[in-house]
């Protein structure tokens, strides 16, 4: 009976795992199939080909989109880490008038759904003349309230004595932050880095609003426009384009899955 239960459990788990993994394997396989094979259930292409990748690469600037995505996501992640730490440090460890208000406003901002501010932000970007610029993709994400509150929570746990003795040694606040707090806060920084990078890497609604120039599009945006606009022409070509977006993430995920799960599950738990 016990054995039977375990067999049932592992069978169920395997079916579930296949459900989650098989579509991605099928997607990868389909990119190597010629159009007449595209719908086949099997994973092995009978007539393997790189044609889909060649067509995809020739029809839209995916190389450029990859560069754009890396540039935007990296800049945002670095900014959120550096600027966010500075803000969180002050909000956690420095006494100044207005701090309680700042903490309250930061928390309140998190509760406002993004769709409320989407249009006013868009009109702001238009008025600033930032449509079709990197600034439109980057500047509204330079700070992240979730990241600041997470880092603040972490910084609160570091003993005051460390700060006091550093100040005694004549260290400034920024040096204390980057030479004492940062090494201690590595896990928190990793969590913030992953969800910030992933959020930016996968974001598509905001770029769809503020970028129309193909050369400035990020990967998910160009992919969406390409697949919808019929530029792809066939399923294999669309999926080949999707692969550029997925492969780096999957490689990172395989090596860092524990951090990914902790980071992405943790960042959602803010309500």
């Amino acid at each position, binding site marked *: 009976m016990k054995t039977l239960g375990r067999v049932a459990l592992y069978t169920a*788990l395997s079916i579930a795992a296949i459900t989650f993994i098989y579509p991605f394997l099928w997607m990868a396989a*389909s990119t190597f199939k010629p159009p007449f094979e595209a719908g086949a259930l099997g994973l092995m292409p009978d007539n393997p080909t790189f044609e889909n990748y060649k067509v995809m690469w020739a029809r839209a600037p995916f190389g450029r989109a990859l560069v754009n995505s890396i540039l935007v996501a990296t800049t945002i992640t670095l900014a959120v880490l550096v600027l966010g730490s500075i803000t969180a440090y002050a909000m956690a460890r420095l006494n100044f008038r207005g701090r309680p208000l700042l903490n309250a406003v930061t928390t309140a901002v998190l509760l406002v759904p993004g769709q409320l501010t989407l249009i006013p932000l*868009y009109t702001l970007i238009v008025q600033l003349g930032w449509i079709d610029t990197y600034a439109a993709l980057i500047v509204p994400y330079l700070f992240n309230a979730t990241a600041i509150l997470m880092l603040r929570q972490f910084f609160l746990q570091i003993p005051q004595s460390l700060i006091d003795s550093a100040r005694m040694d004549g260290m400034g606040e920024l040096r204390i932050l980057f030479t004492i707090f940062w090494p201690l806060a590595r896990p928190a920084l990793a969590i913030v880095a992953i969800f910030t990078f992933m959020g930016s890497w996968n974001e598509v609604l905001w770029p769809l609003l503020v970028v129309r120039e193909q050369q400035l599009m990020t990967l998910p945006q160009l992919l969406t426009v390409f697949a919808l606009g019929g530029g792809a022409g066939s*399923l294999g070509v669309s999926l080949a384009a999707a692969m550029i977006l997925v492969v780096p993430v999957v490689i990172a995920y395989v090596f860092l899955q524990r951090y990914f799960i902790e980071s992405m599950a943790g960042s959602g738990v803010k309500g």
Partner: protein
Amino acid sequence: MRAEERSGWFLTAPFVTFLLAFAVYPILFALVLVFLHWDLVTAPSLAGFDNVRLLANDARFWRSVANTFVFLAIHLPLQIATALALALALNRPLVFRAFWRAAFFLPVVISGAVVAILWSSLYATDVGLFNQLLTRIGLSPVPWLTDPRTAMPAIAVMVTWKNVGFYVIIYLAGLQYIPRSCQEAIEIEGVSPWQRFRHLTLPSLLPQTILVVTLSTINGFQLFIEPYVMTGGGPLRRTYSIVLYLYTNAFSYQKMGYAATIGVALALMIGLVVAIQRRVLGTAEAL
């Protein structure tokens, strides 16, 4: 002024500036836009209550609201059931636990745009994976995304699949807090596994269930990329989501005032629905 006071202000000044420009100002300006007509080309003009009145009588808007509730009615129970079942399975002593967990979480890390494109091909009527499986077991193919009756349920199933790994993690965390002593005591009493689930596990997990309901409701109200990519809101506008309608008004019709009004209405609806859900589930907790 004390040095600490000065540092505090100096170090938070960039964030305060950012908050004012990219959070406080847009929130206030959203409320102003509700009372404006603005196409971004000509000067904005006062609209009075035009936008609000239009919203109240706009069948397309209310269609998208109804669609959202159809989505939630399928998505919420399915999301809770699948997340709970997978979490319970993972909570047992297992070999390769990390592998199973990572497999379930995989779709969470993949871009929604990719998932939408991938599932469009899985749902395709003629060559899609699902219909090939159906025809193989002798059933007739279903036009998943082109039949107004199946399109939204199909999207709801896909979103459940994409997010379930996230909610499994939440439930797993909750399961770890059910005291072993409770479980052992109840095993000695000789109650059936179903009764144990019904009277110990499920009530203990209520805080997690409230969280799952809240997050997936907010997520459901923000549905955009899936209908945008898979159906364009069709067939018969049955998958037109609120955010897709907001986007269309802003981007295709250049109606900033009306789009902002939809945004404000959406925020209010999310707040209201989540408050009601918490109230109802909170009462369940008291029982």
